[in-house]
Protein backbone atom coordinates (compact mmCIF):
# COMPACT_ATOMS: atom_id res chain seq x y z
CA UNK A 1 0.00 0.00 0.00
CA UNK A 2 1.16 3.51 -0.82
CA UNK A 3 -1.20 6.04 0.68
CA UNK A 4 -1.14 9.81 0.13
CA UNK A 5 -2.92 11.64 2.97
CA UNK A 6 -3.67 15.28 3.57
CA UNK A 7 -5.95 17.53 5.62
CA UNK A 8 -7.07 21.17 5.38
CA UNK A 9 -9.80 21.18 8.03
CA UNK A 10 -7.74 22.92 10.71
CA UNK A 11 -5.31 25.87 10.42
CA UNK A 12 -2.65 23.30 9.43
CA UNK A 13 -1.92 22.32 5.86
CA UNK A 14 -0.44 18.88 6.18
CA UNK A 15 0.41 16.01 3.83
CA UNK A 16 2.00 12.60 4.32
CA UNK A 17 2.88 9.38 2.52
CA UNK A 18 2.33 6.05 4.29
CA UNK A 19 3.36 2.59 3.05
CA UNK A 20 0.92 0.60 5.16
CA UNK A 21 3.45 0.16 7.94
CA UNK A 22 4.84 3.59 8.66
CA UNK A 23 4.83 7.24 7.62
CA UNK A 24 7.51 7.73 4.95
CA UNK A 25 7.36 11.54 4.89
CA UNK A 26 5.24 14.31 6.29
CA UNK A 27 4.84 18.08 5.92
CA UNK A 28 3.07 20.40 8.33
CA UNK A 29 2.53 24.16 7.96
CA UNK A 30 0.17 26.34 9.97
CA UNK A 31 -1.38 29.15 7.92
CA UNK A 32 -5.17 29.26 8.18
CA UNK A 33 -5.56 31.65 5.25
CA UNK A 34 -3.41 29.95 2.62
CA UNK A 35 -4.65 26.38 2.31
CA UNK A 36 -5.25 26.89 -1.40
CA UNK A 37 -1.71 28.04 -2.10
CA UNK A 38 0.08 25.57 0.16
CA UNK A 39 -1.61 22.21 -0.39
CA UNK A 40 -0.44 21.13 -3.85
CA UNK A 41 3.21 22.18 -3.27
CA UNK A 42 3.05 20.27 0.04
CA UNK A 43 1.80 17.14 -1.75
CA UNK A 44 4.58 17.49 -4.31
CA UNK A 45 7.19 17.90 -1.59
CA UNK A 46 6.07 14.98 0.53
CA UNK A 47 6.19 12.59 -2.42
CA UNK A 48 9.64 13.84 -3.40
CA UNK A 49 10.91 13.40 0.17
CA UNK A 50 9.41 9.91 0.38
CA UNK A 51 10.89 9.05 -3.01
CA UNK A 52 7.50 7.91 -4.26
CA UNK A 53 6.33 8.49 -7.82
CA UNK A 54 2.70 9.69 -7.85
CA UNK A 55 1.77 6.95 -10.32
CA UNK A 56 2.67 4.32 -7.71
CA UNK A 57 0.10 5.64 -5.20
CA UNK A 58 -2.63 3.13 -4.41
CA UNK A 59 -5.06 5.34 -2.46
CA UNK A 60 -5.71 8.81 -1.09
CA UNK A 61 -6.98 9.62 2.39
CA UNK A 62 -8.35 13.08 3.12
CA UNK A 63 -9.64 14.78 6.24
CA UNK A 64 -13.31 15.55 5.62
CA UNK A 65 -13.67 17.84 8.62
CA UNK A 66 -15.46 19.19 10.42
CA UNK A 67 -13.61 22.44 9.80
CA UNK A 68 -14.06 25.97 8.47
CA UNK A 69 -15.53 25.40 5.02
CA UNK A 70 -13.38 27.38 2.65
CA UNK A 71 -10.16 25.69 3.71
CA UNK A 72 -11.86 22.32 4.14
CA UNK A 73 -13.04 22.32 0.52
CA UNK A 74 -9.47 22.77 -0.76
CA UNK A 75 -8.58 19.34 0.60
CA UNK A 76 -11.74 17.61 -0.55
CA UNK A 77 -11.75 18.89 -4.11
CA UNK A 78 -8.02 18.21 -4.42
CA UNK A 79 -8.56 14.63 -3.23
CA UNK A 80 -11.46 14.11 -5.61
CA UNK A 81 -9.50 15.50 -8.56
CA UNK A 82 -6.33 13.53 -7.75
CA UNK A 83 -8.33 10.36 -7.25
CA UNK A 84 -9.96 10.83 -10.64
CA UNK A 85 -6.79 11.81 -12.50
CA UNK A 86 -4.59 9.09 -10.94
CA UNK A 87 -7.32 6.46 -10.93
CA UNK A 88 -7.07 5.63 -7.22
CA UNK A 89 -9.78 5.42 -4.53
CA UNK A 90 -10.31 8.34 -2.13
CA UNK A 91 -11.09 7.63 1.54
CA UNK A 92 -12.53 10.22 3.90
CA UNK A 93 -11.42 10.44 7.53
CA UNK A 94 -13.12 12.50 10.21
CA UNK A 95 -10.43 15.04 11.11
CA UNK A 96 -11.23 14.73 14.81
CA UNK A 97 -10.61 10.94 14.62
CA UNK A 98 -7.16 11.62 13.20
CA UNK A 99 -6.37 14.03 16.05
CA UNK A 100 -7.59 11.42 18.57
CA UNK A 101 -5.40 8.79 16.90
CA UNK A 102 -2.41 11.09 17.23
CA UNK A 103 -3.17 11.93 20.88
CA UNK A 104 -3.27 8.22 21.74
CA UNK A 105 -0.05 7.61 19.81
CA UNK A 106 1.51 10.35 21.92
CA UNK A 107 0.46 8.52 25.08
CA UNK A 108 -2.91 9.93 26.08
CA UNK A 109 -5.02 7.21 27.69
CA UNK A 110 -8.55 6.99 29.02
CA UNK A 111 -11.59 8.72 27.61
CA UNK A 112 -11.04 12.19 26.17
CA UNK A 113 -12.62 14.88 24.02
CA UNK A 114 -11.14 16.40 20.85
CA UNK A 115 -12.16 19.97 20.04
CA UNK A 116 -11.08 22.24 17.18
CA UNK A 117 -11.89 25.89 16.60
CA UNK A 118 -15.14 26.31 14.67
CA UNK A 119 -14.92 30.14 14.89
CA UNK A 120 -17.99 32.18 15.87
CA UNK A 121 -17.33 31.20 19.50
CA UNK A 122 -18.06 27.54 18.79
CA UNK A 123 -16.03 24.32 18.67
CA UNK A 124 -16.17 21.21 16.53
CA UNK A 125 -15.87 18.28 18.95
CA UNK A 126 -16.09 14.54 19.46
CA UNK A 127 -15.48 12.28 22.45
CA UNK A 128 -13.60 8.97 22.53
CA UNK A 129 -13.70 6.07 25.00
CA UNK A 130 -10.61 4.49 26.54
CA UNK A 131 -10.14 2.21 23.56
CA UNK A 132 -10.13 5.16 21.15
CA UNK A 133 -13.61 4.59 19.70
CA UNK A 134 -15.61 7.73 18.94
CA UNK A 135 -18.67 7.64 21.19
CA UNK A 136 -20.06 11.15 20.70
CA UNK A 137 -19.96 13.67 17.86
CA UNK A 138 -18.77 15.04 15.59
CA UNK A 139 -20.85 18.09 16.43
CA UNK A 140 -20.56 21.85 16.60
CA UNK A 141 -21.55 23.71 19.78
CA UNK A 142 -20.78 26.61 22.08
CA UNK A 143 -18.23 25.46 24.69
CA UNK A 144 -20.47 26.52 27.58
CA UNK A 145 -23.13 24.06 26.42
CA UNK A 146 -20.75 21.08 26.56
CA UNK A 147 -19.87 18.55 29.24
CA UNK A 148 -16.63 17.13 27.81
CA UNK A 149 -14.44 14.35 29.23
CA UNK A 150 -11.95 15.33 31.94
CA UNK A 151 -9.12 15.18 29.42
CA UNK A 152 -9.21 17.04 26.13
CA UNK A 153 -7.00 17.88 23.18
CA UNK A 154 -7.05 20.28 20.23
CA UNK A 155 -6.89 24.00 19.56
CA UNK A 156 -10.60 24.34 20.31
CA UNK A 157 -10.08 22.88 23.78
CA UNK A 158 -7.03 25.07 24.44
CA UNK A 159 -9.05 28.12 23.43
CA UNK A 160 -11.76 27.62 26.08
CA UNK A 161 -10.12 26.65 29.41
CA UNK A 162 -13.37 27.16 31.35
CA UNK A 163 -14.95 24.25 29.50
CA UNK A 164 -11.75 22.28 28.90
CA UNK A 165 -9.63 22.88 32.05
CA UNK A 166 -6.86 20.35 31.32
CA UNK A 167 -6.55 20.75 27.58
CA UNK A 168 -3.38 19.68 25.81
CA UNK A 169 -1.91 19.14 22.35
CA UNK A 170 -1.93 18.13 19.58
CA UNK A 171 -3.55 21.41 18.56
CA UNK A 172 -4.14 20.61 14.89
CA UNK A 173 -4.30 17.46 12.83
CA UNK A 174 -1.19 15.94 11.28
CA UNK A 175 -1.45 14.06 7.99
CA UNK A 176 0.91 11.39 9.33
CA UNK A 177 -1.60 10.51 12.04
CA UNK A 178 -4.45 10.69 9.56
CA UNK A 179 -2.60 8.35 7.20
CA UNK A 180 -1.83 5.94 10.02
CA UNK A 181 -5.45 5.96 11.17
CA UNK A 182 -6.64 5.28 7.61
CA UNK A 183 -4.06 2.52 7.05
CA UNK A 184 -5.03 0.86 10.35
CA UNK A 185 -8.74 0.97 9.60
CA UNK A 186 -8.30 -0.33 6.05
CA UNK A 187 -6.01 -3.13 7.26
CA UNK A 188 -8.68 -4.12 9.79
CA UNK A 189 -11.20 -4.32 6.97
CA UNK A 190 -13.22 -1.38 8.24
CA UNK A 191 -14.71 1.15 5.87
CA UNK A 192 -13.71 4.78 5.95
CA UNK A 193 -15.97 7.72 5.12
CA UNK A 194 -16.94 8.93 1.65
CA UNK A 195 -15.12 12.03 0.38
CA UNK A 196 -17.94 14.32 1.49
CA UNK A 197 -17.49 17.33 3.81
CA UNK A 198 -18.75 17.23 7.39
CA UNK A 199 -20.11 20.78 7.39
CA UNK A 200 -22.40 20.32 10.43
CA UNK A 201 -23.94 23.73 9.78
CA UNK A 202 -26.33 24.97 7.14
CA UNK A 203 -25.00 27.72 4.86
CA UNK A 204 -25.51 31.26 6.13
CA UNK A 205 -28.17 32.66 3.92
CA UNK A 206 -31.13 34.86 4.56
CA UNK A 207 -34.23 35.08 2.49
CA UNK A 208 -34.74 38.80 1.96
CA UNK A 209 -37.71 40.08 3.97
CA UNK A 210 -39.95 41.19 1.14
CA UNK A 211 -39.45 44.12 -1.16
CA UNK A 212 -38.18 47.35 0.40
CA UNK A 213 -39.89 50.51 -0.87
CA UNK A 214 -37.76 53.43 -2.06
CA UNK A 215 -40.45 56.09 -1.59
CA UNK A 216 -40.79 57.56 1.91
CA UNK A 217 -43.74 56.08 3.81
Amino acid at each position, binding site marked *: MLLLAFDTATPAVTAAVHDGTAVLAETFQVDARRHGELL*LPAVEEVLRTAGVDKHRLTAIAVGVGPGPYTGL*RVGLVTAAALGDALGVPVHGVCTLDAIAHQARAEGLTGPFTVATDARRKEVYWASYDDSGIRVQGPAVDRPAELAPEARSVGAGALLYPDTFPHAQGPEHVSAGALADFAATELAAGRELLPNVPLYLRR*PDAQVPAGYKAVLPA
Partner: protein
Amino acid sequence: MADEPLVLGIETSCDETGVGIVRGTTLLADAVASSVNDHARFGGVVPEIASRAHLEAMVPTIRRALDTAGIKASDLDGIAVTAGPGLAGALLVGVSAAKAYAWALDKPLYGVNHLASHICVDQLEHGRLPQPTMALLVSGGHSSLLLSADITTDVRPLGATIDDAAGEAFDKVARVLGLGFPGGPVVDRKAREGDPRAIAFPRGLSGPKDPEYDFSFSGLKTAVARWVEARRRAGESVPIADVAASFQEAVTDVLTRKAVKACKANGVDHLMIGGGVAANSRLREMAQQRCDKAGIVLRVPRPGLCTDNGAMVAALGAEMVWRDRAPSAFDLSADSSLPVTEVSVPHTDLHSAAHRALQS
Protein backbone atom coordinates in the same frame (compact mmCIF):
# COMPACT_ATOMS: atom_id res chain seq x y z
CA MET B 1 -6.44 21.77 -37.12
CA ALA B 2 -5.11 18.79 -35.23
CA ASP B 3 -1.91 20.52 -34.12
CA GLU B 4 -3.78 23.27 -32.28
CA PRO B 5 -3.62 23.03 -28.50
CA LEU B 6 -6.18 20.89 -26.70
CA VAL B 7 -7.10 22.63 -23.43
CA LEU B 8 -9.59 22.02 -20.63
CA GLY B 9 -10.95 25.10 -18.84
CA ILE B 10 -12.58 25.32 -15.42
CA GLU B 11 -14.81 28.20 -14.34
CA THR B 12 -16.21 28.55 -10.79
CA SER B 13 -16.23 32.30 -10.15
CA CYS B 14 -19.95 32.52 -9.36
CA ASP B 15 -22.81 29.99 -9.38
CA GLU B 16 -21.99 27.96 -12.50
CA THR B 17 -19.57 25.04 -12.39
CA GLY B 18 -18.32 25.19 -15.96
CA VAL B 19 -15.90 22.85 -17.71
CA GLY B 20 -15.08 23.39 -21.37
CA ILE B 21 -12.72 21.67 -23.77
CA VAL B 22 -11.43 23.35 -26.90
CA ARG B 23 -8.89 22.61 -29.59
CA GLY B 24 -7.49 25.95 -30.71
CA THR B 25 -10.59 27.93 -31.57
CA THR B 26 -12.88 24.90 -31.90
CA LEU B 27 -15.31 24.05 -29.12
CA LEU B 28 -15.39 20.34 -28.28
CA ALA B 29 -17.35 20.34 -25.02
CA ASP B 30 -19.08 22.81 -22.73
CA ALA B 31 -20.42 21.16 -19.58
CA VAL B 32 -22.20 23.29 -16.99
CA ALA B 33 -23.75 22.47 -13.63
CA SER B 34 -25.65 25.44 -12.27
CA SER B 35 -26.77 26.10 -8.72
CA VAL B 36 -28.96 29.03 -9.84
CA ASN B 37 -32.16 27.39 -8.59
CA ASP B 38 -30.70 27.02 -5.10
CA HIS B 39 -30.22 30.79 -4.95
CA ALA B 40 -33.57 31.89 -6.36
CA ARG B 41 -35.41 32.18 -3.04
CA PHE B 42 -32.61 34.35 -1.66
CA GLY B 43 -32.95 36.84 -4.53
CA GLY B 44 -29.26 36.60 -5.38
CA VAL B 45 -26.27 34.29 -5.34
CA VAL B 46 -25.38 33.04 -1.83
CA PRO B 47 -21.59 32.46 -1.80
CA GLU B 48 -21.58 29.49 0.59
CA ILE B 49 -24.32 27.70 -1.34
CA ALA B 50 -22.39 28.29 -4.57
CA SER B 51 -19.14 26.95 -3.08
CA ARG B 52 -20.82 23.80 -1.76
CA ALA B 53 -22.38 23.16 -5.15
CA HIS B 54 -19.04 23.62 -6.92
CA LEU B 55 -17.40 21.00 -4.72
CA GLU B 56 -20.15 18.46 -5.48
CA ALA B 57 -20.26 19.16 -9.19
CA MET B 58 -16.55 19.56 -9.95
CA VAL B 59 -15.32 16.09 -10.85
CA PRO B 60 -18.59 14.88 -12.43
CA THR B 61 -18.65 17.98 -14.66
CA ILE B 62 -15.05 17.35 -15.75
CA ARG B 63 -15.89 13.72 -16.53
CA ARG B 64 -18.91 14.85 -18.55
CA ALA B 65 -16.83 17.34 -20.56
CA LEU B 66 -14.16 14.70 -21.34
CA ASP B 67 -16.84 12.21 -22.42
CA THR B 68 -18.57 14.77 -24.65
CA ALA B 69 -15.28 15.76 -26.28
CA GLY B 70 -14.39 12.10 -26.68
CA ILE B 71 -10.87 12.59 -25.37
CA LYS B 72 -8.78 11.27 -22.50
CA ALA B 73 -7.43 13.65 -19.87
CA SER B 74 -3.93 12.53 -20.82
CA ASP B 75 -4.45 13.94 -24.35
CA LEU B 76 -4.68 17.51 -23.02
CA ASP B 77 -1.99 20.15 -23.69
CA GLY B 78 -2.95 22.25 -20.70
CA ILE B 79 -5.46 23.03 -17.96
CA ALA B 80 -6.82 26.56 -17.58
CA VAL B 81 -8.83 27.92 -14.68
CA THR B 82 -10.44 31.18 -13.64
CA ALA B 83 -8.11 32.64 -10.98
CA GLY B 84 -10.33 35.72 -10.51
CA PRO B 85 -12.15 38.00 -10.18
CA GLY B 86 -15.17 36.38 -8.51
CA LEU B 87 -16.39 34.92 -5.23
CA ALA B 88 -13.32 33.92 -3.23
CA GLY B 89 -14.58 30.60 -1.88
CA ALA B 90 -16.10 29.61 -5.21
CA LEU B 91 -12.91 30.43 -7.15
CA LEU B 92 -10.85 28.37 -4.72
CA VAL B 93 -12.74 25.17 -5.56
CA GLY B 94 -11.97 25.49 -9.27
CA VAL B 95 -8.37 26.58 -8.75
CA SER B 96 -7.70 23.66 -6.39
CA ALA B 97 -9.22 21.17 -8.81
CA ALA B 98 -7.28 22.58 -11.76
CA LYS B 99 -4.00 22.32 -9.87
CA ALA B 100 -4.69 18.72 -8.89
CA TYR B 101 -5.49 17.67 -12.46
CA ALA B 102 -2.55 19.60 -13.92
CA TRP B 103 -0.13 18.11 -11.42
CA ALA B 104 -1.46 14.55 -11.62
CA LEU B 105 -1.44 14.62 -15.43
CA ASP B 106 1.85 16.54 -15.80
CA LYS B 107 0.18 19.33 -17.79
CA PRO B 108 0.87 23.07 -17.62
CA LEU B 109 -1.57 25.09 -15.49
CA TYR B 110 -2.91 28.48 -16.61
CA GLY B 111 -4.63 30.70 -14.06
CA VAL B 112 -6.53 33.24 -16.16
CA ASN B 113 -8.73 36.29 -15.77
CA HIS B 114 -12.49 35.78 -15.92
CA LEU B 115 -13.11 38.99 -17.88
CA ALA B 116 -10.48 38.25 -20.52
CA SER B 117 -12.08 34.80 -20.90
CA HIS B 118 -15.47 36.42 -21.58
CA ILE B 119 -13.82 38.22 -24.51
CA CYS B 120 -11.80 35.27 -25.78
CA VAL B 121 -14.81 32.94 -25.94
CA ASP B 122 -15.88 34.67 -29.13
CA GLN B 123 -12.97 32.94 -30.91
CA LEU B 124 -14.98 29.73 -30.64
CA GLU B 125 -17.80 31.32 -32.61
CA HIS B 126 -16.17 33.77 -35.02
CA GLY B 127 -12.49 32.76 -35.23
CA ARG B 128 -9.45 34.58 -33.88
CA LEU B 129 -10.11 38.03 -32.46
CA PRO B 130 -8.95 40.99 -34.52
CA GLN B 131 -6.27 43.10 -32.86
CA PRO B 132 -7.30 45.39 -31.36
CA THR B 133 -10.81 44.45 -30.25
CA MET B 134 -13.21 46.58 -28.22
CA ALA B 135 -15.23 44.56 -25.72
CA LEU B 136 -18.38 45.45 -23.84
CA LEU B 137 -18.81 43.02 -20.95
CA VAL B 138 -22.16 43.10 -19.22
CA SER B 139 -23.40 40.66 -16.62
CA GLY B 140 -24.70 40.43 -13.08
CA GLY B 141 -21.18 40.97 -11.79
CA HIS B 142 -19.55 43.33 -14.25
CA SER B 143 -20.19 46.13 -16.74
CA SER B 144 -16.99 47.18 -18.47
CA LEU B 145 -15.63 48.59 -21.68
CA LEU B 146 -12.29 46.99 -22.43
CA LEU B 147 -9.79 47.52 -25.21
CA SER B 148 -7.61 44.50 -25.99
CA ALA B 149 -4.60 44.58 -28.29
CA ASP B 150 -3.64 40.99 -27.43
CA ILE B 151 -6.11 38.89 -25.47
CA THR B 152 -3.32 36.94 -23.73
CA THR B 153 -1.35 39.95 -22.48
CA ASP B 154 -2.98 43.31 -23.01
CA VAL B 155 -6.46 44.24 -21.80
CA ARG B 156 -7.05 47.88 -20.88
CA PRO B 157 -10.12 49.13 -19.04
CA LEU B 158 -11.68 52.24 -20.57
CA GLY B 159 -14.68 52.40 -18.26
CA ALA B 160 -16.84 50.41 -15.86
CA THR B 161 -19.94 50.77 -13.75
CA ILE B 162 -19.54 53.04 -10.74
CA ASP B 163 -22.37 51.32 -8.84
CA ASP B 164 -24.57 48.38 -9.93
CA ALA B 165 -23.66 46.03 -12.74
CA ALA B 166 -26.15 46.00 -15.63
CA GLY B 167 -27.34 42.50 -14.77
CA GLU B 168 -27.86 43.52 -11.18
CA ALA B 169 -30.18 46.29 -12.34
CA PHE B 170 -32.20 43.70 -14.28
CA ASP B 171 -32.46 41.56 -11.14
CA LYS B 172 -33.58 44.48 -9.00
CA VAL B 173 -36.15 45.75 -11.48
CA ALA B 174 -37.51 42.22 -11.84
CA ARG B 175 -37.93 42.20 -8.09
CA VAL B 176 -39.76 45.54 -8.08
CA LEU B 177 -42.10 44.12 -10.71
CA GLY B 178 -42.49 40.81 -8.85
CA LEU B 179 -41.01 38.78 -11.70
CA GLY B 180 -38.54 36.64 -9.72
CA PHE B 181 -34.82 35.85 -9.99
CA PRO B 182 -32.78 35.95 -12.19
CA GLY B 183 -34.22 39.07 -13.77
CA GLY B 184 -32.53 39.21 -17.18
CA PRO B 185 -34.48 36.63 -19.19
CA VAL B 186 -37.90 37.48 -17.71
CA VAL B 187 -37.52 41.25 -18.19
CA ASP B 188 -36.41 40.61 -21.78
CA ARG B 189 -39.50 38.45 -22.34
CA LYS B 190 -41.96 40.93 -20.80
CA ALA B 191 -40.35 43.83 -22.65
CA ARG B 192 -41.20 42.29 -26.00
CA GLU B 193 -44.89 43.02 -25.35
CA GLY B 194 -44.26 46.55 -24.11
CA ASP B 195 -43.56 50.00 -25.53
CA PRO B 196 -39.91 51.06 -25.01
CA ARG B 197 -40.91 54.72 -25.33
CA ALA B 198 -43.78 54.55 -22.82
CA ILE B 199 -41.77 55.95 -19.90
CA ALA B 200 -38.68 58.17 -20.14
CA PHE B 201 -36.33 56.61 -17.60
CA PRO B 202 -32.99 58.39 -16.98
CA ARG B 203 -29.77 57.53 -18.84
CA GLY B 204 -27.04 57.47 -16.18
CA LEU B 205 -23.72 59.29 -16.71
CA SER B 206 -24.78 60.59 -20.10
CA GLY B 207 -24.25 64.30 -19.52
CA PRO B 208 -21.51 66.30 -21.27
CA LYS B 209 -19.36 66.45 -18.12
CA ASP B 210 -19.82 62.82 -17.08
CA PRO B 211 -17.02 60.29 -17.52
CA GLU B 212 -17.26 59.14 -21.12
CA TYR B 213 -17.06 55.38 -20.70
CA ASP B 214 -18.25 54.74 -17.16
CA PHE B 215 -21.75 53.46 -16.39
CA SER B 216 -24.24 53.94 -13.58
CA PHE B 217 -27.41 51.90 -13.18
CA SER B 218 -28.30 52.59 -9.58
CA GLY B 219 -30.23 55.80 -10.34
CA LEU B 220 -32.15 54.08 -13.12
CA LYS B 221 -33.11 51.21 -10.84
CA THR B 222 -34.38 53.67 -8.20
CA ALA B 223 -36.28 55.68 -10.81
CA VAL B 224 -38.07 52.52 -11.93
CA ALA B 225 -38.94 51.62 -8.33
CA ARG B 226 -40.27 55.13 -7.62
CA TRP B 227 -42.37 55.15 -10.76
CA VAL B 228 -43.89 51.74 -9.98
CA GLU B 229 -44.55 52.56 -6.33
CA ALA B 230 -46.21 55.87 -7.19
CA ARG B 231 -48.55 54.01 -9.51
CA ARG B 232 -49.37 51.39 -6.92
CA ARG B 233 -49.96 54.03 -4.27
CA ALA B 234 -52.37 55.86 -6.51
CA GLY B 235 -54.27 52.59 -6.80
CA GLU B 236 -53.47 52.29 -10.50
CA SER B 237 -52.36 49.12 -12.22
CA VAL B 238 -48.69 48.84 -13.24
CA PRO B 239 -48.11 48.30 -16.98
CA ILE B 240 -45.40 45.69 -16.43
CA ALA B 241 -44.52 45.19 -20.09
CA ASP B 242 -44.11 48.94 -20.68
CA VAL B 243 -41.98 49.38 -17.54
CA ALA B 244 -39.78 46.44 -18.54
CA ALA B 245 -39.40 47.68 -22.12
CA SER B 246 -38.66 51.29 -21.09
CA PHE B 247 -36.14 50.19 -18.46
CA GLN B 248 -34.42 47.82 -20.88
CA GLU B 249 -34.32 50.55 -23.50
CA ALA B 250 -32.55 52.90 -21.08
CA VAL B 251 -29.91 50.26 -20.24
CA THR B 252 -29.22 49.20 -23.80
CA ASP B 253 -29.23 52.79 -25.06
CA VAL B 254 -26.41 53.80 -22.71
CA LEU B 255 -24.41 50.60 -23.20
CA THR B 256 -24.44 50.64 -26.98
CA ARG B 257 -23.97 54.41 -27.30
CA LYS B 258 -20.84 54.36 -25.15
CA ALA B 259 -19.46 51.22 -26.78
CA VAL B 260 -19.77 52.64 -30.28
CA LYS B 261 -18.30 55.94 -29.13
CA ALA B 262 -15.31 54.11 -27.62
CA CYS B 263 -14.73 52.24 -30.88
CA LYS B 264 -14.75 55.44 -32.90
CA ALA B 265 -12.54 57.35 -30.48
CA ASN B 266 -9.95 54.58 -30.49
CA GLY B 267 -10.11 53.76 -34.18
CA VAL B 268 -11.32 50.22 -33.49
CA ASP B 269 -13.59 48.64 -36.10
CA HIS B 270 -14.62 45.53 -34.14
CA LEU B 271 -16.89 45.39 -31.12
CA MET B 272 -17.54 42.21 -29.15
CA ILE B 273 -20.23 41.97 -26.50
CA GLY B 274 -20.02 39.31 -23.81
CA GLY B 275 -21.39 38.45 -20.36
CA GLY B 276 -24.85 37.23 -19.41
CA VAL B 277 -26.61 40.47 -20.41
CA ALA B 278 -25.28 39.99 -23.96
CA ALA B 279 -28.03 37.38 -24.24
CA ASN B 280 -30.57 40.24 -24.05
CA SER B 281 -32.42 40.43 -27.36
CA ARG B 282 -32.86 44.20 -27.37
CA LEU B 283 -29.17 44.79 -26.60
CA ARG B 284 -28.15 42.57 -29.53
CA GLU B 285 -30.62 44.29 -31.85
CA MET B 286 -29.67 47.84 -30.89
CA ALA B 287 -25.94 47.10 -30.97
CA GLN B 288 -26.31 45.64 -34.46
CA GLN B 289 -28.16 48.72 -35.73
CA ARG B 290 -25.70 51.18 -34.25
CA CYS B 291 -22.62 49.21 -35.32
CA ASP B 292 -23.97 48.89 -38.88
CA LYS B 293 -24.49 52.63 -38.98
CA ALA B 294 -20.97 53.32 -37.68
CA GLY B 295 -19.26 50.77 -39.95
CA ILE B 296 -18.23 48.59 -37.02
CA VAL B 297 -18.23 44.79 -37.19
CA LEU B 298 -20.22 43.41 -34.24
CA ARG B 299 -19.27 40.04 -32.73
CA VAL B 300 -21.61 38.55 -30.15
CA PRO B 301 -21.26 34.88 -29.20
CA ARG B 302 -24.41 32.80 -28.94
CA PRO B 303 -26.20 33.23 -25.58
CA GLY B 304 -24.87 29.95 -24.12
CA LEU B 305 -21.31 31.21 -24.51
CA CYS B 306 -22.08 34.70 -23.14
CA THR B 307 -23.01 33.50 -19.66
CA ASP B 308 -20.27 32.10 -17.41
CA ASN B 309 -18.94 28.80 -18.74
CA GLY B 310 -15.83 26.66 -18.90
CA ALA B 311 -15.45 26.96 -22.66
CA MET B 312 -14.42 30.61 -22.33
CA VAL B 313 -11.64 29.67 -19.91
CA ALA B 314 -10.51 26.87 -22.20
CA ALA B 315 -10.56 29.29 -25.15
CA LEU B 316 -8.21 31.69 -23.38
CA GLY B 317 -6.06 28.80 -22.13
CA ALA B 318 -5.70 27.47 -25.67
CA GLU B 319 -4.70 30.92 -26.86
CA MET B 320 -2.10 31.07 -24.06
CA VAL B 321 -0.61 27.75 -25.17
CA TRP B 322 -0.75 28.74 -28.83
CA ARG B 323 1.13 31.97 -28.11
CA ASP B 324 3.56 30.20 -25.81
CA ARG B 325 2.69 32.26 -22.73
CA ALA B 326 4.10 31.35 -19.31
CA PRO B 327 2.05 28.92 -17.23
CA SER B 328 1.20 29.40 -13.55
CA ALA B 329 2.88 27.79 -10.55
CA PHE B 330 1.21 25.28 -8.23
CA ASP B 331 1.02 27.92 -5.49
CA LEU B 332 -1.41 29.89 -7.68
CA SER B 333 -3.91 31.86 -5.57
CA ALA B 334 -7.57 32.46 -6.20
CA ASP B 335 -7.80 36.27 -6.29
CA SER B 336 -11.35 37.58 -5.83
CA SER B 337 -10.32 41.06 -7.01
CA LEU B 338 -7.85 40.14 -9.76
CA PRO B 339 -7.49 43.32 -11.86
CA VAL B 340 -8.65 43.06 -15.46
CA THR B 341 -5.20 44.14 -16.60
CA GLU B 342 -3.80 40.85 -15.30
CA VAL B 343 -4.91 38.50 -18.05
CA SER B 344 -3.10 35.59 -16.45
CA VAL B 345 -1.17 34.82 -13.28
CA PRO B 346 2.24 33.69 -14.51
CA HIS B 347 4.73 31.55 -12.63
CA THR B 348 6.02 33.75 -9.82
CA ASP B 349 9.40 31.98 -9.70
CA LEU B 350 10.10 32.76 -13.35
CA HIS B 351 8.94 36.26 -12.65
CA SER B 352 11.27 36.81 -9.74
CA ALA B 353 14.09 34.97 -11.54
CA ALA B 354 13.75 37.41 -14.44
CA HIS B 355 13.72 40.23 -11.96
CA ARG B 356 16.87 39.03 -10.25
CA ALA B 357 18.59 38.60 -13.61
CA LEU B 358 17.82 42.22 -14.44
CA GLN B 359 19.17 43.48 -11.15
CA SER B 360 22.42 41.52 -11.12
